[in-house]
């Protein structure tokens, strides 16, 4: 185990009880007293039904929290506090009033306008970031923003903070591994108080200090400090920040704290902690310790300290008054900031064109559009698994040639860590709103699932931050079957993702639409899931002419074949199948209108309704399973809003409610095909 003195340069001590100037000591004492006063007052709000229904007391963490806040340099650094970091953010510059506004969820709460849970403090305009309740997952965001700090050669660090028990989450490893591999200026602050709610830390991992699990990671410096000691913590954080910037390497800072209170107001710690233990930790109270030291070393008199304490009482009282008088959030505002306003094409308003010339296939269209956009906007980045190795650019060569043209700082491989891929995209976006990230969320959509927890973050970051932060990400996934790929190379996941408000989902079927939607996505703020039907990458039938500057707006379907007898709504792999069925039915004198939805979220209800009005019959065809597929949502919308125009029930064609079998015989039985579509269409036409 690294020895404290081997890891810390004692001649670097900047702060100590004897030499630190009185003004600084006063500032610290004031912050610590103020923080504690609010920490102790918070439960009273809940008792009076004023709010603060979630409060995680921080008493016992005072030293390290003060230090993190003091080390944070506004304008240079990014901070990712966790739900216990009350003193941290106060020390970083938030006011007592701002803390209370957050506690009681007022409309003027700087973190989220009352939308996110109380005690999750933030001030995004200062880059004290809004973080999740999912403990520890903001480590990935810190790594992402540090990647940007390094790329843009700015002086600064990303500081992320959470408890020791959160280190059990795999994504914490992914973050530390990534920061070490990329050599980024991140300080991971681990506030070790020995508990994860009621679970003692010995139940999390074998090493008593979880950070010791990382002693083998290259490029990572592990530091230890006493989080209950103001001076030790201040010196440690000062050294960590200086080191991280000078060396462009991450630091894992272990701070020993105690948790004098319960985990939160919904935890009763006397159920699992005895009198002796509570006495033991109370004796280690960092604030009392600091106070004793100030008196013992004659830096302050008792009177002077009491004067500060009296000031704090007044300050809290004033802040309380102001916060209580602040406005509550307006219920009508719930629809604000679900997703940012998208880029609106001006030239190709409907997302259609009549250009003629040489056709390009889907892969080429995507590849060329990516390149064009990367030339157009220098603040674009692309990463994923397998995207850049000499002549290989992705498993299907979609990113071929990109690293050669744009360099390895903009185009690079990520480790096999889907959560890391998405989480760092979220983080990098925080550096500057002009950044656009393209990620291959996973090599195949089927492997995307480990990234779901970061995906959820990305979908509601904009809403949760009250419109202050949007992750600007195009998340590409090779989707769908018909390639004999079986269970892990055939999945369609749009229905699973569509249930989360805050992302767009597009699923082009043709080369031009792919190019157009990709361009719009890259020029928009917000998160867009760009699903690519991989069976059509090299398909001749999906190839089209692609105007160089083509754009397709979100939420605009495309009538690929006009008709009057039946409206067939489809997307992805089944568009071509549906068109071929329409031709077959035309020979039987049936006129089927085939509409390629292209954009699933937002959905083009206008075009759908126009069509149903005309034909009175609707059939939805998609490759995904019928049960719980998006077709059910569309059918319900048509059924409830266009009922009076319907002459028949709305029908759906899709996969069977089974996984996709590997043997081609099984795959064929599961997936939709022209015969199944033909049967359903015919039946409906004849209804």
């Amino acid at each position, binding site marked *: *185990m690294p020895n404290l003195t081997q890891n810390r340069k004692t001649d670097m001590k900047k702060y100590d009880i004897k030499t630190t100037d009185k003004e600084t000591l006063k500032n610290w004492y004031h912050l610590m007293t103020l923080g504690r006063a609010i920490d102790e007052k918070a439960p009273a709000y809940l008792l009076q039904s004023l709010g603060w229904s979630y409060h995680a007391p921080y008493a016992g963490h005072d030293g390290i929290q003060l230090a993190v806040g003091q080390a944070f340099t506004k304008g240079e650094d990014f901070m990712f506090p966790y739900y216990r970091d009350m003193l941290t953010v106060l020390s970083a510059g938030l006011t007592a009033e701002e803390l209370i506004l957050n506690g009681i969820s007022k409309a003027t709460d700087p973190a989220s306008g009352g939308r996110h849970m109380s005690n999750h403090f933030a001030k995004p305009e200062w880059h004290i970031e809004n973080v999740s309740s999912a403990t520890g997952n903001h480590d990935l965001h810190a790594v992402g923003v540090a990647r940007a700090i390094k790329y843009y050669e700015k002086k600064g660090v990303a500081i992320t903070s959470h408890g020791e028990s959160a280190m059990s989450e795999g994504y914490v490893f992914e973050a530390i591994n990534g920061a070490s591999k990329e050599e980024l200026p991140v300080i991971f602050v681990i506030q070790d108080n020995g508990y994860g709610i009621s679970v003692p830390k010995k139940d999390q991992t074998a090493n*008593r200090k979880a950070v010791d699990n990382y002693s083998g990671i290259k490029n990572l410096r592990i530091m230890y400090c006493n989080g209950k000691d103001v001076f030790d913590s201040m010196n440690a954080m000062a050294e960590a920040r200086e080191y991280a910037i000078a060396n462009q390497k991450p630091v894992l800072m272990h701070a020993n704290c105690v948790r004098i209170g319960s985990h939160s107001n919904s935890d009763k710690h006397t159920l699992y902690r005895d009198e002796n233990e509570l006495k033991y930790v109370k004796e280690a109270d960092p604030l009392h310790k600091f106070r004793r030291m100030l008196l013992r070393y004659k830096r302050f008199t008792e009177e002077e300290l009491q004067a500060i304490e009296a000031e704090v009482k007044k300050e809290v009282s004033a802040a309380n008054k102001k916060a209580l008088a602040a406005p509550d959030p307006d219920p009508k505002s719930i629809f604000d900031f679900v997703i940012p306003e998208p880029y609106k094409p001006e030239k190709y308003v409907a997302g259609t064109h009549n250009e003629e010339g040489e056709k390009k296939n889907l892969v080429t269209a995507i590849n060329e559009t990516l390149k064009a956009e990367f030339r157009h906007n220098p603040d674009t980045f692309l990463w994923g698994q397998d995207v850049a190795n000499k002549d290989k650019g992705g498993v299907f060569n979609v990113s071929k040639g990109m690293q050669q043209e744009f360099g390895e700082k903009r185009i690079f491989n990520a480790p096999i860590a889907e959560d890391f891929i998405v989480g760092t995209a979220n983080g990098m976006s925080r550096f500057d709103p002009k950044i656009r990230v393209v990620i291959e969320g996973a090599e195949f959509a089927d492997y995307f699932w480990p990234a779901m927890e970061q995906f959820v973050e990305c979908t509601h970051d904009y809403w949760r931050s009250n419109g202050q932060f949007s992750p600007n990400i195009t998340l590409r996934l090779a989707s769908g079957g018909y390639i004999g790929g079986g269970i892990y190379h055939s999945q369609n996941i749009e229905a699973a993702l569509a249930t989360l408000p805050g992302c767009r989902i597009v699923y082009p079927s043709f080369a031009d639409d792919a190019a157009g939607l990709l361009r719009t996505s890259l020029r928009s703020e917000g998160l867009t899931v760009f699903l690519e039907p991989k069976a059509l990458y090299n398909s001749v039938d999906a190839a089209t002419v692609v105007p160089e500057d083509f754009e397709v707006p979100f939420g605009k379907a495309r009538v690929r074949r006009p008709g009057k007898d039946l409206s067939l709504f489809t997307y992805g792999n089944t568009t071509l199948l549906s068109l071929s069925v329409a031709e077959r039915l035309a020979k039987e004198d049936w006129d089927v209108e085939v509409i390629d939805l292209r954009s699933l979220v937002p959905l083009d209800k206008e075009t759908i309704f126009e069509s149903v009005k005309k034909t009175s019959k609707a059939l939805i065809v998609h490759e995904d399973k019928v049960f719980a597929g998006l077709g059910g949502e569309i059918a319900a919308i048509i059924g409830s809003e266009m009922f009076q125009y319907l002459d028949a029930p709305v029908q759906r064609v899709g996969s069977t409610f089974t996984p996709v079998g590997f043997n081609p015989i099984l795959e064929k039985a599961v997936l939709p095909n022209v015969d199944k579509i033909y049967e359903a269409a015919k039946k409906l036409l004849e209804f």
Partner: protein
Amino acid sequence: MKLLKNYLNFNNNKNTIYAMKKIGLFYGTTTTKTASIAKKIKEAFGSENVDLVSVEDAWKKDFESYDNIIVGVATWFDGELPNHWDEVRPELEALNLKGKKVAIFGLGDQVRYPENFVDGIGILAETFESVGAKIVGFTSIDGYNFEMSRAIRDHKFVGLAIDKENQSKLTNDRIKSWVEQLKKEFD
């Protein structure tokens, strides 16, 4: 003086040591376990040879007034000094204790805290050495079962390790042997 001292050391059953200077035994008087060990050590030396000093109130002159010093220290949490030692450390670091001898005893729990067993002894040893004192009373690490300790140099503890939780039966003998050792090593 040295010859007399050597002659007298043959009489190791005697309780009063004529040549040894008075010992100042510093420990946290608010503690229970450390306090009880401190009292046993005082008895083993002979009460008249040892002054018990409260470290919570101790200051510069208290340390400077003894040539032979014993300090008692528990280890808190994951390898920290208890408050009463930690808070006097900045004062200690400003002293000049050249020529003085310091012996350290500490309490630890090998089973629950094997990764930082009696770290407190090691931390204080470093502190006292940094201001010129000589550490005496090294003991063998045999007979203990732990993983790591800051109190080890060349396979020895830089003091006496007492484990009341797991090896309480050995405490009295350990104290006795240590005291006999210190009688020879102290001035």
